[in-house]
């Protein structure tokens, strides 16, 4: 089967690459062994939130302080600003509704009741300009009876810092009786599926309106709109007070909707999305990757002019660490990282963990290195790249989006 481009990995990086290339008329396929990290998304795309332990106000400016090995530096700071715009436009064209800008972080309230700096936030959530104040004085935190994945006490405690009086109230509805019977199934995605059917929203809004009498704002878990893309907006219309949605324990409802939205965009552009299939190996000749072999397709080869590796980090098995080795499991590509295992971990788990920065080694054009030589037509994008600790510095989505666009541009040159 012949494509112009084949992308390995269907998470944020793979989809961004795929959409960009398909928009330019390329015939693309994405092969993904399972669902991706977007399912755990908080609802905000981070660009850069922390450098040298300091909170970042202007990510574009603060990037200058990053080490030269960081993916942003390697893409080139001269290109970054343009790429952040391109990324935003690509997401908006795909149907996502986002607010935020690259030269000034805004804040979102975390489920711990803390203001966290970020770049782009889905319209489900509320963005704040200021981390030191909260626009409302009296908040009601509504939860569903029996729903354990929304930690209302943390939120209430966190809000005390802003001198907000918060009260927790529970809502029961017969629509949720059935899922409540099975405590392990009282999860955000199952509540969302009930709301998706549109026959619970009116009653819920009515109850919320009664319970929020005397309060300035209604705080709710983000369980609205899994497959149904309009229900979160409907909710906000029907509730009279301002609504503040906060992430519940993942999997994240807005995250899954984001994944579906991007995947649909890719398919509408003619892209082929193969889920549940594992890329097992590649056939190389003269420094080029000719074809890949997958579990489902066996002897039927998947050929392309260029390939992109967007297989994610440790979590998605794009990189694998065992007790004595660290490797890229599909092709055995070169790894950027210490061979000395002693240096991988810091025993204090909240310290900067060296292994988080490990990933596939590339040349300056983001082509994968194999046995010390670049593979001419195999590009690398997203969290499978080394050189950053996305969780520590708050750069996960930014690195995925910008390195993917950069890789796509190398291919389109």
């Amino acid at each position, binding site marked *: *089967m012949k494509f112009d481009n084949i992308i390995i990995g269907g998470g944020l990086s793979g989809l961004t690459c795929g959409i960009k290339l398909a928009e330019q008329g390329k015939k693309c396929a994405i092969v993904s062994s399972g669902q991706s990290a977007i399912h755990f998304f908080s609802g905000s795309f981070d660009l850069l939130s922390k450098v040298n332990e300091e909170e970042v106000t202007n990510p574009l400016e603060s990037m200058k302080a990053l080490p030269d090995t960081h993916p942003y530096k390697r893409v080139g700071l001269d290109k970054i600003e343009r790429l952040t715009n391109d990324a935003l436009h690509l997401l908006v064209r795909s149907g996502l509704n986002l607010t935020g800008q690259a030269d000034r972080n805004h804040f979102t309230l975390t489920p711990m009741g803390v203001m966290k700096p970020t770049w782009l936030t889905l319209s489900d959530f509320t963005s704040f300009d200021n981390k030191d104040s909260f626009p409302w004085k009296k908040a009601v935190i509504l939860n569903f009876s029996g729903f354990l994945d929304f930690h209302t006490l943390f939120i209430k405690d966190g809000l005390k810092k802003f001198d907000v009086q918060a009260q927790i109230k529970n809502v029961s509805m017969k629509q949720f009786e059935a899922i409540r019977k099975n405590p392990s199934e009282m999860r955000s995605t199952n509540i969302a599926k009930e709301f998706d059917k549109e026959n619970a929203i009116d009653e819920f809004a009515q109850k919320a309106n009664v319970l929020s009498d005397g309060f300035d704002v209604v705080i709710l878990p983000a369980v609205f709109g899994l497959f149904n893309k309009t229900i979160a907006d409907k909710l906000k219309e029907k509730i009279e007070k301002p609504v503040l949605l906060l992430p519940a324990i993942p999997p994240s409802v807005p995250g899954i909707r984001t994944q579906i939205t991007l995947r649909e965009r890719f398919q509408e552009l003619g892209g082929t999305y193969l889920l*549940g299939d594992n890329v097992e190996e590649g056939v190389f000749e003269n420094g080029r990757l000719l074809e890949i072999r997958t579990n489902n397709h066996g002897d039927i080869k998947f050929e392309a002019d260029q390939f992109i590796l967007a297989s994610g980090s440790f979590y998605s098995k794009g990189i694998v660490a065992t007790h004595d080795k660290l490797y890229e499991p599909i092709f055995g590509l070169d790894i950027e990282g210490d061979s000395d295992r002693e240096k991988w971990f810091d025993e204090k788990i909240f310290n900067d963990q060296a292994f988080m920065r490990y990933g596939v080694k590339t040349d300056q054009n983001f082509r994968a290195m194999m046995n010390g030589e670049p593979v001419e037509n195999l590009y690398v994008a997203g969290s499978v790249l080394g050189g950053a600790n996305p969780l520590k510095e708050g750069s996960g989505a930014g690195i995925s989006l910008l390195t993917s666009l950069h890789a796509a541009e190398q291919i389109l040159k």
Partner: protein
Amino acid sequence: MKKEIFEPYNVSDNNFEQCVKCTICTVYCPVLEVNPDYPGPKQSGPDGERMRLKDPEFYDEALKLCLNCKRCEVACPSGVKIGDIIQSARIKYSKSKPKLRDMILANTDIVGTMASTFAPIVNTAVALKPVRKVMDSVLKIDHHRMFPKYTGLRFETWYRRYAEKKQQEFDKHVSYFHGCYVNYNFPQQGKDLIKVMNAAGYGVHLLEKEKCCGVALISNGLIKQATKQAKHNVEAFKKSIVDKKMPVISTSSTCIFTIRDEYPHLLGVKNEEIRNDSELATRFLFRLIDEGKLNLVFKKNYKKRIAYHTPCHMEKLGWSIYSTSLLKMIPGVELVQLESQCCGIAGTYGFKKENYQTSQEVGKPLFNQIENSKVDFVATDCETCKWQIEMSTSSKVHHPISILAEAIDVEATMKLWQK
């Protein structure tokens, strides 16, 4: 650096230890969405397995509500074989005995033999309202279900009488696993397959004696019989694949999925020698075209708007791309790819009275998609999806091979290789 092979360490036969408890599988389970009595893939699969290994008493009969659609496996980021874990647990722990009704539904070939022998009587009888009422109340086969019609002339008989001799005229040969549906209910599909394969230059042969693949036996808990049939089929496949060097193709995605994957995973019947050469006709044809060994010529006047539905087992196999690629090659075809969703029938599952409602609710989003797609008909690779969609929507359903048979210019295609 040398390529390392990632080999997860599992203590169990299946791989429930790989589960990282992310609950992504539960998002995509079609049953959980409509039937809260079902504990869901995570609970029934890896979580439950941990408990059951400690004490089999933890086995929950609600596991029979699983459709075995494997959509949870397709979504799982950690490669946990959730569906296999659930089905194996049913085999190992279930104490409920299959009912008479389950035996009738499961024995597709015996029932088929009897029914097609008396086809005119059976067809009229099962279509009659009073008979369906009795089936509903006594046998608990839901009265909404129309049994697929049984044919008077079985495919095998037709083949021996009218097609067998001609197959010797070809240089290249394949065997055809037709399955119960083609044999007893819809021989036309087998005839279409022969037409297409002959046009492609292949003679089509039957296996020495094929038995039902056993999918319905497995899902109805008749494991001994299923294992016996599986062993028989593997031997029959070997005679074709190993002895005669003739690959085996089929038109039923469920039969092929069962033979390739469920035989070793659920029944412990080894099939390494035959697995690679047992596949769907669409994949076989696609490979020939992809490798430049075959060109198909299509009729100029064939014009259709077609929606493709991905059956669950095709989703798991990842093979719908072969069917859709072939359909897209037909110049007059405008293909609408339906969002991949379960139709709800899951073989004999939806025939049971207690499952009827779940079955229809699972399928509803797909039926809505189809009604809104404004197509001439739906294409799909699975016969039970066909029944379900034809019963639940206003659309007719055709197999991709039958569509090719209709659209191919046989003579022109044959001329290309006859020279």
